[in-house]
């Protein structure tokens, strides 16, 4: 079986073997247009690889662990990460590898290539899902090319492909993937041609950048854009961006550099070249029978077609669900770098300043009218920051994922989550908060009088060291009883925080875990996996990953502080409303404020366990619940179901925190917990990150855990396997 086909053999082998991209390229080549030197690894080699290595069984195990409909995007990303690593760590059978190696060397030697996906049906008219499978640019050397062939195979199960599995018809039993290898064209200028403008069917669109096309496709460089008459190719308009950078083939992969002054001022195409591209696009349309989405490049003024696929109306951009938003979370390194600067230098300082400014308000002197205005102002402000959180902070969290992928590609570790060890100890704000709580607890431990006083519900005077530190804590992080959402009583929230501190003081402090791999060695190994020229890139990506990990937590704290300021004002409003001396006018005015008339759904929502009464003849009980292992270790303790924030204040040492999703305002109890269970899934979610910082077993994605586990029952958390075992009666 020949593992590598030349372009002349593509059509004979059929689209089922070479995939849509390769088949189209062969047609273009046959028409006499220039395409880069192209070979194809047909689908049968992929099939053979799956069969001989038996990784199909493991993929099936991964994707059937839990119904997709119950999975969040993070869990799908996790599956994709594990499958990707499986391909990376599973060698191609030796006989195929040997033939493939010599044929790749024969075809490309040490020249740089692009390794692209070519799934059957991928680029056909019925389903155009460009970008769901991976392509890699500037890959050099046969071994490296073979590694990237496996990564293209793995992208059959990319998170994006899994999200669109129904539309793609993804089925592990039948889905196939061919791979195209093309010589890399040292592009002067490149771009895309869209035969039919999606917003006007009488127009065509050309976008162009200097250098490689990757910068345009990833959105890292703004292109020049021409709108043309579809029928005549006449230029209707030309939109010029501020031209700054271009992409070029780096040591391996893609680098960015500044354009010369001259190119900054000059569009990448002249009118004649724009017309030449339109004319070629029309030929493609005639060849394939419908308008095309074509990628092209100029090299020494020769137009070369990189790929072409039909434009369809069923692409994922038109879907009306959240998946399109999920896909925007995939950010390139360049994009994340820009986002980091925005967050670190602008957004976070603004949030800190905002929270500080709001903290200086004295509500006591405000009239009811002014208080209403203040509450509304704070609500608007908080809503604004929630939007920023979704628009900028959540996408920046993708930096963790990007680092994980780059780490795994370079190191190919057995454990696909090995990279997480390099992200820990970044000085999370919530760990600072927990350390401050621990200092307060230590004061109680070492001072019996203070302990007795607090147990008698008495708060020390303002100048008492404990009170000073407690006030500092509340100033910095808000009263936990308030910020957890009670909103009724913020002055040490019905002594909630004191109860919690007394609980902390009962046991010796929980140390941050120190076990685990040798970080220095891991880091060295990571850095040594890159050639000398790419060391800076490796270090920069690690830095970005660590900052992403830190901010994943810190941004919640900053948002929480602004929320606390909103709650403060609402609390003042509630307090005035309940004052019997309030005037009717003031009462009317305050009652009109939505935040004061609303009953929180979250708090009042009842989550009764779906268990029948065990005293009756028949009963039902969950014994084992499978989730995702998100923090190694095993622990047994009483399940503490946190249905509303007040439940946290009764948390006891050794309890297992069970909740729908750990948020910022829950993580302060984690030092008390023996383990953490979350219904929400994902390895990189908030609760899992904090649990790992303390070395606690953690399971995420345990669907219906809140229904299936009873509050107070004994459960065992196996954080290695992701299994919760509930203690049941003797048989």
């Amino acid at each position, binding site marked *: 079986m020949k593992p590598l086909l030349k372009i002349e053999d593509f059509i004979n082998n059929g689209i089922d073997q070479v995939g849509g991209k390769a088949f189209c390229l062969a047609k273009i080549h046959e028409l006499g247009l220039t395409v880069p030197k192209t070979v194809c690894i047909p689908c049968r080699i992929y099939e053979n690889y799956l069969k001989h290595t*038996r990784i199909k069984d493991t993929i099936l195990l991964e994707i059937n662990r839990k119904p997709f409909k119950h999975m969040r995007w993070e869990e799908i990303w996790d599956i994709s990460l594990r499958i990707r690593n499986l391909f990376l760590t599973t060698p191609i059978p030796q006989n195929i590898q040997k033939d493939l190696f010599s044929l790749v060397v024969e075809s490309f030697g040490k020249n740089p290539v692009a390794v692209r996906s070519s799934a059957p049906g991928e680029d056909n008219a019925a389903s155009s899902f460009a970008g769901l499978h991976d392509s890699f640019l500037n890959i050099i050397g046969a071994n490296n090319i073979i590694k990237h062939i496996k990564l293209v195979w793995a992208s059959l199960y990319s998170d994006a492909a899994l999200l669109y599995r129904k539309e793609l018809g993804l089925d592990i039993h039948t889905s196939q993937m061919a791979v195209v290898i093309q010589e890399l064209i040292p592009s002067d200028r490149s771009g895309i041609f869209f035969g039919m403008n999606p917003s006007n069917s009488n127009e065509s669109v050309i976008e162009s950048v200097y250098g490689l096309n990757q910068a345009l496709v990833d959105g890292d460089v703004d292109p020049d854009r021409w709108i043309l008459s579809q029928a005549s190719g006449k230029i209707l308009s030309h939109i010029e961006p501020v031209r700054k950078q271009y992409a070029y083939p780096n040591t391996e992969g893609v680098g960015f550099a500044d354009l010369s002054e001259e190119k900054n001022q000059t569009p990448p195409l002249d009118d004649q070249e724009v017309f030449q591209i339109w004319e070629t696009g029309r030929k493609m349309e005639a060849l394939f029978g419908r308008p095309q989405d074509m990628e092209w490049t100029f090299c020494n003024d020769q137009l070369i077609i990189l790929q072409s696929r039909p434009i369809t109306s069923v692409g994922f951009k038109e879907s009306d669900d959240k998946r399109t938003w999920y896909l925007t979370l995939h950010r390139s390194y360049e994009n994340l770098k820009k986002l980091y600067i925005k967050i670190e230098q602008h957004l976070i300082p603004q949030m800190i300043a905002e929270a500080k400014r709001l903290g200086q308000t004295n509500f006591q002197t405000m009239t009811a009218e002014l208080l209403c205005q203040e509450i509304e102002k704070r609500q608007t402000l908080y809503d604004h920051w929630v939007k920023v959180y979704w628009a900028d902070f959540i996408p920046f969290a993708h930096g963790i994922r990007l680092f994980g992928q780059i780490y795994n590609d370079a190191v190919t570790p057995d454990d696909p989550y090995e990279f997480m060890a390099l992200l820990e100890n970044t000085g999370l704000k919530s760990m600072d908060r927990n350390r401050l709580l621990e200092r307060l607890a230590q004061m109680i431990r070492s001072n019996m009088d203070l302990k007795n006083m607090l147990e008698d519900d008495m708060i020390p005077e303002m100048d008492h060291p404990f009170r000073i530190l407690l006030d500092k804590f509340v100033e910095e992080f808000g009263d936990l009883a308030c910020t957890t959402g009670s909103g009724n009583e913020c002055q040490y929230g019905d002594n909630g925080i004191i109860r919690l501190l007394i609980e902390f003081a009962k046991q010796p402090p929980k140390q941050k875990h120190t076990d685990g791999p040798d970080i220095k060695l891991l880091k060295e190994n990571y850095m040594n996996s890159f050639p000398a020229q790419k060391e800076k890139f490796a270090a920069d990506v690690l830095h970005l990953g660590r900052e992403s990990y830190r901010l994943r937590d810190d941004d919640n704290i900053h948002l929480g502080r602004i929320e606390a300021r909103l709650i403060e004002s609402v609390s003042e409003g509630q307090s005035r409303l309940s004052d019997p001396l309030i005037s009717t006018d003031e009462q009317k005015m305050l009652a009109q404020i939505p935040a004061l008339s609303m009953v929180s759904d979250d708090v009042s929502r009842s989550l009764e366990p779906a268990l029948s009464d065990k005293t009756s003849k028949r009963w039902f009980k969950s014994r*084992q619940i499978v989730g995702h*292992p998100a923090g190694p270790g*095993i622990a047994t303790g009483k399940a503490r179901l946190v249905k509303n924030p007040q439940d946290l204040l009764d948390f006891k040492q050794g309890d297992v925190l069970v909740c729908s999703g750990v948020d910022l305002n829950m993580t302060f109890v984690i030092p008390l917990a023996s383990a953490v269970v979350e219904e929400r899934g994902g390895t990189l979610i908030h609760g899992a990150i904090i649990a790992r910082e303390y070395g606690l077993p953690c399971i995420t994605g345990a669907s219906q855990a809140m229904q299936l586990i009873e509050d107070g029952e004994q459960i*065992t958390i196996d954080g290695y*396997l992701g299994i919760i*075992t509930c203690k049941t009666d003797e*048989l």
Partner: protein
Amino acid sequence: MDDNMKHSLKQITTLFDSQMLAVLSTQSRDQPYASLVAFAADDNLEQLFFLTPNTTRKYENLIDSPKVAILVNNSVNQADDIYNAISVTGIGTAAVVETSDKTQLLNMYLKKHPHLKGFSKAPTTAFICVAMKRYFMVNQFQNVVEIQVKS
């Protein structure tokens, strides 16, 4: 070894090679229990192996009471299973593998179940060996033979 025994052992080997799952019967404090396990056998059918989390009831049972039974069969949920299918029940003594040859035995096991490699690595996963004593093979409805593996 007589030909009948050779033939029966060959049939059992073929059956074991063709099947991924077995029913494991355990008991503790006079209470029987059954569960499915992904099993593998050694070449001479003296030992059967499987993996289990150490938090399960089957694990608790076999630690408390190591004598177990294992059933393997190739029925396909059709009426003719009653005369076409072969069922083999084996009895033996289970123990957690902690010997020096654990890696070698586990590799043998993972050759049959490579997708369980991740599962096998968890510190809370126990690798169990059942030292087989006797097999009972049933075919053609009620033909039963007994084969003593170890006294």
